[in-house]
């Protein structure tokens, strides 16, 4: 910093410019799938026989063992597993590689909400012809619907996140509050808990795009509709309203802890009972076990509260697929690996390591369903979670630019958490900004 002002200015300009340079790379057009092997299950078998090296970009920890097993089974194949970042970081890197036409991996982990962004730009290949079209009954309906778009299949589901209500039984017992079965009961429970202990909250929430969209999904909303390049966004539909109205009550009465998820305070609150519930995907138990040691024995799982008493609707929250970039030079071999990791033997390896399966076989196996969890006081938690996977509401889709939309969620809806803006207004603002981005990107929006 001890420089002349001019040099500082220059440096600033240079840094910005270099960043821009690195980001957009050479701007060369990506080749739209001109690689030799474009389909056929036969190609896959041939590629396995021939062998070769494939690069896999993923951050999912259980894939390490899978890659090793795959190499052991196919000695001529080498799998280079690279952690190119988690979530958004990896997507940025992938987008840049695709744009530059260089360094594109053969397989990439892509979350369901981000997949449309890649499939629409044809950055990832339609893999139906490799054999994916025959996997209809292999995967659970929620994740399977998430990878199918515009009559194509753009990835193989790797894990899933059917939602459930995780709750701290100790807190509910202590304050004699019944575990809520509907969202109205949830609001009542929130009042009771907070009244009994002003430091305790039923949940933490400072505005989370993934959570909000999953809640709207469960409420039957379909705010995003995509038909090729035509997109419609309506964050004021019945489902969105339903969520906004109920959640607004919690905000108005300050019944939600203003703690960010995954922060130190969050882990602490989950352990000491000041955050009493979590409505999240089925991948959460492993995180609770490793991150909230103080909560051992206290937590339980219940079905997600309902919008209508007696219903059993659920939605998905998180989860990723393995997709094959269009620019991959060895798609058949890449598919062989993705298939092995998600539908083949790898699926079991990953479940054993703690992942929540997206395959019907694993999710229904007695060994999985009847497994007792010590952390959850011996509860057979997978029974609840597997049931949730069956009840995911159909017909949901994400925006083809959901990654960006989620990044501006707190700029818009977030205002409802810290000011007088209502959730409904925040959602309208989110819609407005998302529409304008969509227009800018050349979509026909609304």
């Amino acid at each position, binding site marked *: 910093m001890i420089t002349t002002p001019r040099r500082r200015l220059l440096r600033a300009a240079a840094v910005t410019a270099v960043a821009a340079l690195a980001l957009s790379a050479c701007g060369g057009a990506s080749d739209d799938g001109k690689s030799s092997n474009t389909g056929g299950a036969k190609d896959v078998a041939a590629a396995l026989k021939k062998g070769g090296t494939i690069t896999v970009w993923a951050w999912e920890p259980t894939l390490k063992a899978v890659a090793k097993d795959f190499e052991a089974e196919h000695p001529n194949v080498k799998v280079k597993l690279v952690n190119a970042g988690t979530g958004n970081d990896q997507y940025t890197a992938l987008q840049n590689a695709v744009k530059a036409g260089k360094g594109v991996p053969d397989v990439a982990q892509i979350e369901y909400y981000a997949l449309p962004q890649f499939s629409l730009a044809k950055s990832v290949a339609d893999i139906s012809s490799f054999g994916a079209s025959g996997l209809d009954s292999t995967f659970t309906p929620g994740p399977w619907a998430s990878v199918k778009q515009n009559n194509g299949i753009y990835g193989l589901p790797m894990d899933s996140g059917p939602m459930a209500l995780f709750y701290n039984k100790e807190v509910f017992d202590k304050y004699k509050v019944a575990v809520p079965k509907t969202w109205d009961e949830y609001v009542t429970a929130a009042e009771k808990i907070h009244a009994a202990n002003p430091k305790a909250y039923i949940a933490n929430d400072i505005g989370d795009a993934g959570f909000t969209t999953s809640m709207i999904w469960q409420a039957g909303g379909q705010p995003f509709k995509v038909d090729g390049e035509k997109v419609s966004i309506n964050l004021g539909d019945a489902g969105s309203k339903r969520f906004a109205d109920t959640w607004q009550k919690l905000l108005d009465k300050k019944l939600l802890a203003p703690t960010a998820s995954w922060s130190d305070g969050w882990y602490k609150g989950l352990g000491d009972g000041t955050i009493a519930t979590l409505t999240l995907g089925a991948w959460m138990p492993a995180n609770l076990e490793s991150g909230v040691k103080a909560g051992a024995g206290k937590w339980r799982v219940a079905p997600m509260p309902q919008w209508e008493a007696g219903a059993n609707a659920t939605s998905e929250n998180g989860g990723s697929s393995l997709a094959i970039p269009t620019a991959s030079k060895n798609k058949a071999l890449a598919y062989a690996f993705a298939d092995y990791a998600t539908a083949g033997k790898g699926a079991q390896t990953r479940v054993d390591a703690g992942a929540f399966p997206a395959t019907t076989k694993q999710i229904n196996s007695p060994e999985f369903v009847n497994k007792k969890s010590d952390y959850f006081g011996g509860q057979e938690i997978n029974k609840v979670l597997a049931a949730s996977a069956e009840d995911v509401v159909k017909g949901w889709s994400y925006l083809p630019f959901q990654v960006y939309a989620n990044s501006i969620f707190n700029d818009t809806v977030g205002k409802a958490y810290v000011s007088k803006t209502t959730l409904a207004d925040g959602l309208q603002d989110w819609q407005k900004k998302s529409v304008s981005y969509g227009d800018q990107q*050349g979509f026909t929006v609304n």
Partner: protein
Amino acid sequence: MVATGSVVAPARKAASSSSHYRRSWAGWGFLAPFAVIFALVFLAPIAYSIYLSVYQDKLIGGNSFVGFDNYQQALTDPVFWDSVRRVGLFLVVQVPIMLFLALLAALAIDGGRLYGAALFRISIFLPYAVPAVVATLMWGFMYGNQFGLVGSINDTFGISLPDPLGPGLVLASIGNIVTWEFVGYNMLIFYAALRVIPVSLYEAAAIDGASEFRIIRAIKLPAIRGALVIATIFSIIGSFQLFNEPNILHYVAKNAINTQYTPNMYAYSLSFSGQQYNYSATIAIIMGLLTMVIAYTVQLRGMRKAL
């Protein structure tokens, strides 16, 4: 004599022009290491940014030349101007406070009446040695009204302080961090300027019976005017480039600090989450020009006053 002179002259001329020619290439040779790096890390990126700023790359429709469309959009973009206004406000409030405190500290240490001046000097300067990221994380923790220092104070005294990370106060909280970080740095600039004032001036003032305040007003302040101008220009540039502090606090106060809080954050989120590299480059160029104009104006004004 005349004849020889006229014969020699052209020859000398030729020789001198050829040696001049050679000399100029030798100069370029010495310049080359710098020139190459300068072109590579400075000129090329700027040229590339300008190139980027006249194109538009869409998810649907691809890349196309759009001339000055991006500039037109930026100049009428309320989001962009909001962020410019925000750093403008930051500039007119935070910079004077910071420079005043720095000046006060420098005068106190230079005054010679302070016991343990060296200790004061180093401890005021110390925050500057703390990386901005670490400083912001540290302050972010102190500001926390759940598990941070503010939360603890609230608990201990049973009071409810306003949330320093709420939308109303967060800009002031950032200003506090930046002030804490840079008071020492600016103090050092002023102090260095104060040290070079000839002692004879003070002796003369003492003989004339001038008070300490009179010495400050008549000798010290005019003598460090140049340093003041420099520090002001640094601070203006720093304010316009505000990025680290809000960007890190964004993770603990997402709803109060949006992704377009400052022009740099706007450019950052445009390229990293929006893939709008072209528009991002445009914003960067406009901000660069704006900063240059303002810094240059201050410099001209400061220098004119000095004369």
